[in-house]
C-alpha cells in the first residue's frame, strides 16, 4: 500500500529525515518509536504534504503511484489521514460545518453524491454514539476550548467519518489519560481491516497495548535503525532509547 524509499527531507534547510526505507502492506499496522527529535513528526508531515517539509530525495509510492506529487487535500481524498499530535483550533468554524465540508469534499473526489444536511447529521450521530462523543461538540468551533482529551476524540471522530485507507497517528497518546487513550485506540481498532493500514507514531509503548502493531520500527536521527515485532516495543520500554542512540 505504501512504500517509502530512501526518503530524505529537510525542514528550514536542516536535514531531518536521512534515508528512510519502509514498506507497509494492506492490513498492516506499523509502529514507529524513537527518541524526541528523531524525525517522527517530520515523517508524518512529509506523508501528509505540509508546506515547509521539503523532500530532497527518495520516493513515496502510495497505491502504486507517486504520493509526493499530490497536494495535501488530494492525499486526504485518496485515503490518507493524519491524526495530529496537536489538533488545530479554528475559531469561527463550527465543527459540524468543518466535518461536513471534509466528508463532502472526499465524496466529491470519489465521484459520489454529496450528503445533504439531514444525511450528514444522521451519519455523524451514528459515529458520535459509537465513539461515546457528546453531540454538543459539533456546535462548537473546531477544537476551540476543547480539552486535550476532547481534541483527540475529535480526531478519532474525523477518522471514523472519513474512513481513511491509510492512517498516520502522530503521538495520539500524548496528553491523554488512560480512559481517553482507550477511546482513541478503540476508534482506530474499529477501522482495522484487511484493506486498511496504519502508521502509529509514539514515544511510549503504552499506546501499543491498545493498538497492537504487526511491526515496530525504531527511528533515530532520521533513519530506521531497528525493526521487529511488538516485542521490540516492550524491550524499548524496559531499556529505553539509550542503547539505540549509541548504535
Amino acid at each position, binding site marked *: 500500500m505504501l512504500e517509502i524509499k530512501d526518503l530524505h527531507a529537510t525542514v528550514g534547510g536542516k536535514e531531518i529525515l536521512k534515508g528512510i526505507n519502509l514498506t507497509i502492506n494492506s492490513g498492516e499496522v506499523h509502529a514507529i518509536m524513537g527518541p524526541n527529535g528523531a524525525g517522527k513528526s517530520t515523517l508524518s508531515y512529509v506523508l501528509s504534504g505540509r508546506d515547509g517539509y521539503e523532500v530532497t530525495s527518495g520516493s513515496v509510492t502510495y497505491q502504486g503511484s507517486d504520493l509526493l506529487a499530490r497536494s495535501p487535500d488530494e492525499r486526504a481524498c485518496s485515503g490518507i489521514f493524519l491524526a495530529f499530535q496537536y489538533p488545530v*483550533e479554528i475559531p469561527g468554524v463550527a465543527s459540524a460545518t468543518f466535518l461536513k465540508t471534509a466528508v463532502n469534499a472526499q465524496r466529491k473526489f470519489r465521484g459520489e453524491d454529496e450528503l445533504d444536511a439531514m444525511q450528514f447529521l444522521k451519519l455523524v450521530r451514528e459515529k458520535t454514539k459509537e465513539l461515546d462523543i457528546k453531540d454538543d461538540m459539533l456546535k462548537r468551533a473546531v477544537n476551540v476550548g476543547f480539552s486535550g482529551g476532547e481534541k483527540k476524540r475529535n480526531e478519532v471522530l474525523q477518522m471514523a467519518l472519513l474512513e481513511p485507507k491509510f492512517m498516520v497517528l502522530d503521538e495520539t497518546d500524548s496528553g491523554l489519560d488512560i480512559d481517553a487513550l482507550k477511546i482513541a485506540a478503540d476508534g482506530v481498532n474499529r477501522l482495522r481491516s484487511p484493506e486498511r493500514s496504519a502508521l502509529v507514531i509514539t514515544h511510549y509503548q503504552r499506546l501499543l497495548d491498545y493498538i497492537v502493531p504487526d511491526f515496530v520500527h525504531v527511528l533515530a536521527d532520521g533513519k530506521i535503525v531497528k525493526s521487529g515485532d511488538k516485542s521490540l516495543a516492550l524491550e524499548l520500554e524496559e531499556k529505553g532509547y539509550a542503547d539505540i542512540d549509541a548504535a
Partner: protein
Amino acid sequence: MNTLTALAQTYVDRFETALVTLPGKGDRNITTLRKSGLEIFRKADFPHKKIEDWRFTNLSEFSKGIANDTTAPGAEATSANFDAAMEIVFVDGSFSKVLSKLDNLPDGLSVTSFADELGKGAVLSLNEDEDRALVALNTAFMQDGFCIHVTESTAVDIPLIIRFKNTASNTGRHLRNRIILSENAKLTVLEIHEGSGRYFSNPMTTVALSEGAELNHYKLQKESTDAYHLALTEAEILQNAKYNNFSLSIGAKLSRNELNTSVLGADAESQLNGAYLMRGKQHCDTTTVTEHKVPNNTSKQIYKGVLDDRAKGVFQGKIHIHPDAQQVSGDQLSKALLLSDFAEVVCKPELEIYADDVKCSHGATSGELDEVALFYMESRGISKEQARMMLIEAFLADVLEEITDEPIKDFFSEQAADWLAEVADRNE
C-alpha cells in the same frame, strides 16, 4: 490667491450656473448658504495629506480630475437586490418618485426629498470649516437627499431601504440627508450605494435621536470600482437613545466612511461596526470620532477588513471623553486580514480621555490566514481555496453577528459570500 486643483477649479467655475439650476434657486438664504460653502471650499480645496485626518487617504489623483474623466470607459454596474416594502430611490443624486416605493408608509413615518424641502426654503446646515472642505463643497452644490422623520413612540417594524444609483458623471453627487427620531421612536434603514462608471459621490447625513429613540442604520457601499465615495455621517444621541451603525464596504476605487457620533445623555449608546472587503487597488478609509460629553453612557466599535491584491485599508478611530463624562465605557476593535503580501492596512486608534472614572479599550490587529489551520483543513480533504474561504468567513462571522436584523444580516452575509466567491473563482 492660491492655485486650485483642477477638479476644485471646475467646481468654482461651474458654481454660478449651478446656482440657477439647483433646488432652492432664487431663495436668498439658500443662495447665501451656498456662497459661503463655496468660499470655504475655494480657500481649502480638496483635502490633502498635510491635513492630519487625511494623511493616509490621498485624494491627489482624484482632485487632479483625471479620475473623473467620463470619456474613458468605466467599471461595470454594481447592484444589490433586497426585497423592500418601502424604498426611496435616488438616481444620479436626484429623487426618483417612479422608482421609489413610498405609497404605504406606516403612520408616524415621513420620508421626503430634500430637494423639495430646499424648494420650500428649508435649510439644513452642517459645521463647515477649512478642515471640512467636502462639507463646504456639499453645501455649495447640495442637490437632494432623504429627509426621514419618525414621530414620538412610533416603532417602524419594517426596514426602509434608501437606494442611490449612480452613473458616470463628471459632476459630483452631493447629497444632504437627515434622519430625525422623536422620543422613543424606532427605525431601521438600509442605505445601498451602487453604480456604474466614473463618478464622485459625496453624501452627508445627519442623525438626531431624541430620548429613548433607537436607530439601526445599515449601509452597503457597493459603488462602481471606478467611483469615489466620500461620505460623512453625524449622529447626536440623547438620553437612553441607541444608535447602531453597520457599514459593509465592497465597492469604489477610493472610499471614505466618516462617522462622528456625540453621546449626549445617560444610558445612551453609540455602536459603530462594519466590515470592508477590498481587492485590486481599492482604498477604503473608515474614520470615526465618538464624543462622550456627559456621564453614564457607552460606545462600542468593531471593524473587520479583508484586503487582497494591492488594496489598502485605513482605520482611524477616536474616542473622546470630555471632563464631566464619568462612568463611561468605550470599546474599540479593528482587525484586518491581509490576503496578499502587497495589501496594506493602517490603523490609528486614539483615546482622548479627560475624565478619571471611565473604562476604555482599544485594539488593532492585522494578520494573514493561519497556515496551520489551512493545512489542518487540507489534510482532511478540503481544497486550499475552500479552506481559505472558510477561514475568511470565520474571520468576518463575529462582526456580522453584530447585525440584529436577521434579513439584513443574511443580505450582508450574502454580499460578503459573493465577494469571496469572486475572489475564489479568480484564484482557481
